[in-house]
């Protein structure tokens, strides 16, 4: 039996002009990256989607270039080792990595076995494992979960379990690649708390890739910003970086801190409840009456929900994981058939047909009336080319509109048309799936977590396009955990809990953000705090031209 490698102290990371180009790709994923992290420091890597953040994380964890064909450049030292040549066991004992999707990193059925998995691979003696496994679970707030099955845990608990498994061998370096991307706000906050505790104790040197600024920036000692070409735009202390380059970074599509107060204020302005899901007046685009749904006849995913949505309404559907948001969305667009109650979906202007039960409509007619964007973009691709994907089932006139739409969301067919949807970055995949739903101009658009993993440009393009569709009378309903998106988008907030509609509020004043076409209207976006945030006062990215943009600022 091998003796465990003596680890446990935070270690140094040194990168000198490192870069990597995947085989068959025209340009490097990242290049010319240099930095030095002292033991116990935390580096936050930011950048627009597709800028090589995840690839850099894989390189620090020793998986690039070991597991991927391609060309490596530069010199990297991780805890004194060169991970490009060192033995996999030696690197794994010193560096742990947590990925985005909890379900694809859990190996064993039972929680304790999964935590022990990494220790077994490193040859820890059984007695040491028995004391270490409960410690690691305790450190992530999962004490007592030893005998549970990992598939019965919530997404947030699964991700903390993944963290426990990675922390168990006491790595000196911890790499986290968007660890909260799939979690609801409480799950993400619980994860961030555990991370903050590690950072507070300086228990490990941390490299963090994360879109949620409010969680990530307070942890960072250093910021590394990568640009579209995978090259560094900025490296420095958070305050310096903000003071020096906030405008440049925001223009590159990078989220910056400073809007938390605005988001909190927006959610405080919600009018008190009192509506019960029904429209006060006017015809509904979609109306659900006492709808219930159960997947297995024993437990109801949705109970007696009534909800009517009118033309031009922008509804945010909120609530914890498992509260029935996705189920309600799929019912409204006829992808599921209610087990109780009824749903009526209005006919589109073009078809001139009467309202109907969406679950009984033929697919072709349904697609004219409603669009749906699934949470996981990869699960909805039907073809192997981006151009084919957006053109599925379209007529010649719609094809030209599709090409124009792709330009606007930053996926021009000239550049992306021949690529496989599966090779796009997460943010690009999400925009493609949105384009696929928008291209038929349906009267009802339902989105499941449309802003996951979106960089600033993708987010603003999304808001602009939704604003246009809303003006054209489309009803938009978005299931979302993103508090920023609720603040920027929603005119009405419907909350589900445990399968019931528990709250339905309208936002009193029309949001200037959407009415102005884009959130560029400076006054609406200025923070209440005195923090420097020039980021909000600069012109928006060129991919989404607003209809009525105020005069250029900044």
């Amino acid at each position, binding site marked *: 039996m091998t003796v465990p490698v003596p680890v446990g102290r935070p270690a140094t990371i040194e990168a000198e002009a490192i870069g990597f180009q995947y085989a068959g790709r025209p340009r490097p994923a990242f290049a010319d990256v240099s930095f030095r992290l002292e033991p116990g420091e935390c580096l936050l890597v930011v950048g627009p989607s597709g800028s090589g953040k995840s690839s850099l994380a894989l390189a620090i964890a020793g998986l690039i270039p070991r597991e991927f064909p391609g060309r490596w450049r530069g010199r990297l030292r991780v805890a004194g080792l060169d991970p490009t040549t060192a033995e*996999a066991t030696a690197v794994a004992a010193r560096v742990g990595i947590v990925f985005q999707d909890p379900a694809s990193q859990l*190996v064993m*059925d039972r929680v304790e076995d999964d935590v022990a*998995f990494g220790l077994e*691979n490193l040859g820890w003696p*059984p007695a040491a494992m028995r004391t270490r496994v409960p410690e690691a679970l305790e450190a992530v707030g999962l004490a007592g979960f030893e005998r549970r099955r990992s598939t019965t845990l919530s997404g947030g608990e699964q991700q903390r379990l993944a963290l426990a498994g990675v922390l168990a061998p006491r790595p000196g370096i911890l790499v986290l690649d968007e660890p909260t991307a799939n979690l609801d706000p409480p799950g993400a906050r619980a994860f961030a708390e555990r991370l903050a505790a590690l950072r507070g104790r300086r228990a490990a040197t941390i490299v963090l890739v994360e879109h949620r600024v409010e969680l990530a920036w307070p942890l960072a000692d250093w910021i590394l910003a990568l640009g579209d070409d995978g090259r560094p735009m900025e490296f420095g202390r958070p305050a310096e970086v903000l003071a020096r380059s906030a405008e440049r970074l925001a223009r590159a599509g990078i989220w910056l801190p400073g809007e938390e107060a605005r988001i909190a204020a927006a959610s405080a302005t919600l009018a008190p409840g009192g509506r019960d899901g029904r429209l006060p007046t006017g015809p509904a685009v979609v109306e659900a009456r006492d709808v219930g749904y159960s997947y297995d006849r024993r437990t109801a995913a949705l109970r007696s929900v009534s909800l009517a949505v009118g033309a031009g309404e922008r509804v945010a559907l909120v609530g914890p994981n498992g509260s029935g948001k996705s189920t309600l969305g799929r019912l409204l667009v006829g992808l599921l058939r209610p087990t109780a109650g009824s749903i009526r979906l209005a006919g589109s202007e073009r078809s001139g047909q009467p309202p109907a039960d969406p679950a009984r409509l033929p697919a072709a007619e349904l697609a004219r009336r*409603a669009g749906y964007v699934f949470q996981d973009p990869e699960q909805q*691709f039907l073809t192997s080319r981006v151009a084919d994907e957006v053109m599925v089932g379209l007529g010649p006139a719609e094809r030209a509109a599709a090409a124009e739409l792709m330009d606007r969301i930053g996926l021009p067919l000239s550049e992306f048309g021949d690529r496989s949807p599966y090779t796009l970055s997460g943010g690009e995949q999400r925009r493609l799936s949105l384009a696929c739903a928008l291209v038929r101009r349906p009267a009802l658009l339902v989105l499941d977590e449309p802003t996951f993993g979106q960089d600033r440009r993708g987010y603003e393009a999304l808001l602009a396009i939704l604003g246009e569709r809303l003006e054209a009378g489309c009803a938009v309903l978005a299931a979302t955990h993103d508090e920023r998106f609720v603040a920027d988008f929603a005119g009405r907030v419907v909350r589900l809990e445990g399968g019931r509609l528990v709250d339905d509020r309208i936002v009193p004043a029309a949001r200037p953000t959407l009415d102005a076409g884009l959130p560029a209207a400076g006054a609406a976006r200025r923070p209440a705090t005195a923090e420097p945030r020039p980021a909000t006062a600069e012109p928006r990215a060129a991919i989404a031209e607003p209809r009525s943009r105020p005069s250029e600022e900044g």
Partner: protein
Amino acid sequence: MIALAAPADEQLASPLGRTSPLVKLGIALGWLLGLVLTLDPRPPLILVALAVGAGLVLGRIPARRLAAGLLPLWSVALGIGVFNALFSGTNVDPTLAEFARLGPFRVTEQAVANGVAIALRVLTIAAVGVVFGLTTDSTRLVDALVQQGRLPERFGYGALAAYQAIPRLAEALTTLRQARRIRGLRTSWHPSILVGLLVLAIRHGDRLALAMDARAFGAGPRSRYREVRWTILDGVVGLAAIVALVAALAIGTA
């Protein structure tokens, strides 16, 4: 959502639950091979009764749970038996005794005997399989295969991780079919759905493999969090199963 049937802790703590999964696998295989030796209906019936009894008593499986697991498989066994009797080649042999005539169909006694024998064998496999599944933890099965059965670790634990992904793929299949419908395509079984599913399965496998490699899987000698050792119980259960098989066969030839 879709969840795989998993044995509860009480069954795992039962004598049958504590028996090495390898012994149980061996019994299943041994009984199956033993039944090839005879066409008599009695041995499989005895073994079915023994398997069900062992599941209830030694495996502490609640009767309702066992019945719920067995019913669908037993109707399959019945269907296979009827099919074999109706479409047996012996039905066209005029020299064989007729068992029944259904319109233009003639069913010989030989065909009925074949059908019954086949159905009973399927029944036995089903009973042993369900009792095995309801008393065996997947992790323990792989631990036993690797530690006692010398199965390569990479294969064993890789398969275990892949097994966890099955419910996820079932959900992905639903989503893919819904994605076709909302884009105006008919949701009948189109090859592109299977292509999409295959792509998703491969990508999931890639990610899982990467996460496992990052945790030093397959890089060097492993230690064991859970040792699986041969016990007296394994010997007792194995011996009892051999005795049962021999006795059943003896009754069949008597």
